[in-house]
């Protein structure tokens, strides 16, 4: 791990009747993609807004690059880039002019800015649309423009607040690849989302939030261990004359077997070649099947295990 870029300690943000963030602490390290995962209303955006000094928090401390973050800490803000969930651009300016304007809030030199704008357009892949107005762009391209506006000044620390909401799969992949490129180029990324697949795909470390509290943190693998299961195999039986569940339960590493109609779900607590062992067992028992799928636990399973509800509830 590199140096600490963000240090949040005992952060509390209270509204009149609601404790939106309830005493959370976490650190973000240099050159990592840090995922803040949680359902809507879990306190992710409030946390980010507090870190950015957009919100006045009730108690706790926030440090960026080892220094306290305040609304007038302009030198800290110089190294920070933010991409908000909603697109924040001028409808009257072209793609190039928009990126140039937002970059100009950080960089005054014309030449340096021009290069930054070109680099940003290349990174998100909207160079061909430089003379287009936002109204002429598709939803995905608009999101890419939104990202380019936030990262054009080449910040060391980038906050992305749900940047892929309502984005088509092609643009989503492009955005995620871009974020990984930013990390590879030396930036630290804080990524908030409620899409667990994205977090699994790109984040080095993850914090899961619910009701304003951190309920789990660690790497993706570390978190998945909390799910209580390592592998799930689902078998679709061709006929249900024979019930093979008792035999399967005796197989190595099997923790649970569940049968509903013609579908059997087998849970494992570890081990390798579980699927091969199961296929052999079914063949020996003369049980014919139409489908067989192996599934590793997801962060949704972790969330389910920890809170008793789905991440998307």
């Amino acid at each position, binding site marked *: 791990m590199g140096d600490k870029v963000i240090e949040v300690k005992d952060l509390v943000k209270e509204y009149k009747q609601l404790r939106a963030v309830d005493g959370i602490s976490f650190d973000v390290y240099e050159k990592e993609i840090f995922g803040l995962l949680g359902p809507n209303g879990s306190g992710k955006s409030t946390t980010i807004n507090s870190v950015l000094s957009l919100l006045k928090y009730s108690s706790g401390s926030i440090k960026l690059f080892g220094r306290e973050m305040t609304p007038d800490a302009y030198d800290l803000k110089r190294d920070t880039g933010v991409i908000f969930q*909603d697109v*924040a651009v001028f409808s009257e*300016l072209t793609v190039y*002019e928009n990126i140039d*304007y937002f970059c*100009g*809030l950080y960089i005054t030199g014309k030449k340096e800015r021009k290069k930054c704008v070109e680099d940003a357009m290349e990174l998100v892949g909207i160079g061909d649309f430089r003379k287009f107005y936002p109204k002429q762009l598709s939803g995905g391209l608009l999101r890419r423009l939104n990202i380019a506006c936030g990262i054009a000044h080449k910040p060391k620390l980038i906050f992305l607040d749900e940047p892929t909401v309502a984005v088509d799969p092609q643009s989503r992949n492009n955005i995620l690849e871009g974020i990984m490129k930013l990390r590879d180029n030396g930036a630290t990324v804080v990524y908030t989302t409620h899409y667990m697949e994205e977090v699994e795909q790109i984040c080095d470390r993850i914090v899961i939030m619910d009701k304003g509290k951190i309920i789990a943190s660690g790497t993706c693998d570390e978190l998945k261990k909390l799910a209580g299961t390592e592998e799930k195999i689902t078998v679709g039986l061709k006929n249900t004359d024979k019930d093979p569940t008792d035999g399967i339960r005796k197989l190595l590493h099997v923790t649970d077997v569940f049968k509903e109609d013609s579908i059997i779900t087998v849970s494992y607590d570890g081990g390798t070649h579980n699927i091969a062992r199961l296929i052999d067992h079914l063949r020996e028992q003369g049980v014919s099947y139409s489908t067989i799928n192996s599934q590793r636990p997801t962060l949704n399973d972790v969330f389910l295990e920890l809170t008793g509800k789905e991440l998307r509830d």
Partner: protein
Amino acid sequence: MTVFNAFLRVIRRNIGTIILYTAIVIIFSAANSGSNNESTGFTAEKPDIMVVDLDNDSVLSKGFTAFLEENAVLKNIDGGDEAVADALFYREISSLITIPEGFEKDIVSGKTPQVEISSPGTASSELTKMTVQRYLRALKVFAEKYSDPDVIARKAQDALAGKTEVSMMTKLDTASMTKVSSYFNFAAYSLMSCIMFIICLVLSSFNSPMVHKRTVVSSMNFRKYNLHLILSCLSYALAVWVFFMILGRIMAGETVFTARGAAFIINSLVFTACVLAMAFFFSTLLKEKNAVTGIINVVTLGCSFLCGVFVPAQFLPSWVLTAAHALPTYWYVENNDFLAQTQSLRGDLTHYIIDLSVLAGFTVLFAAAGIIISGIKRRE
């Protein structure tokens, strides 16, 4: 310069609006310049009349007709009563004077003959009535002393031959002044529209919640950013004002650059400052661009119609003018009208300064209201 450049780019996207309102002021001013209101000299008015003599060309009726010919333009309408009635209706003649049968006999015998005057009740016909009454009174006076119709006619003619010398007490070129004040009054609508519409639109873009959020998290000092935004608005308003002053020189002539013209210009500058403050005030209330278009149209057109921009104030009902006192446009237009009519600026500056002060007061009021509202919104 980043904020200023973006400000100009957003304005550039709305250039059509500026052209539209400029065209409106040009069209209105050009249309108004056609109405000449010459008053640097005096020319006696001669109404168009028709005389029907039923007294068979008696000496007195002939003398009467000759007198009328000196004071009016005699016209003859062929085609009978219907044609004469049409001529009166369409104002080809302002009066039909019928000298009754026995006119001379009545005068000589000391009676007052019934001279019939048909008219549509215009100012010209009233003038004709006065002329007729004047001549009849003279005939009556001389008929008391003389009995010979020739003598009575000659004496009356001589007595009424004297002309009143009219000399103009004022050097005020009211024709030019009307042209200038009309231009500046119409300019109120264009100034309000160009400044309020554009600034509200531009500020609604800069103050949209997400752009605002992105600005706040940037490394640009927020006070500096606000200062740049204010300077951009000021520069734009000033540029619009200068443009309309140059246009005023083209549309209203050299009078614009006289001492009195300078008073008009100062009045418009103070009004521009007030409009800018109004723009700032409304921009704090309006976030949606569609709302900007609707509300600003209502405000600018409402102010213009209520305060005498399109229709001169003297034609507006008194209750409208009373209500218009609550609007800055009223004081601007009132000051323009005052400048167009006052004989001497030197002796009558108090009225001018009071109107300017009221405009300045409105400026402070709108600016303060805007600051308070934006402060409340920021705290939210």
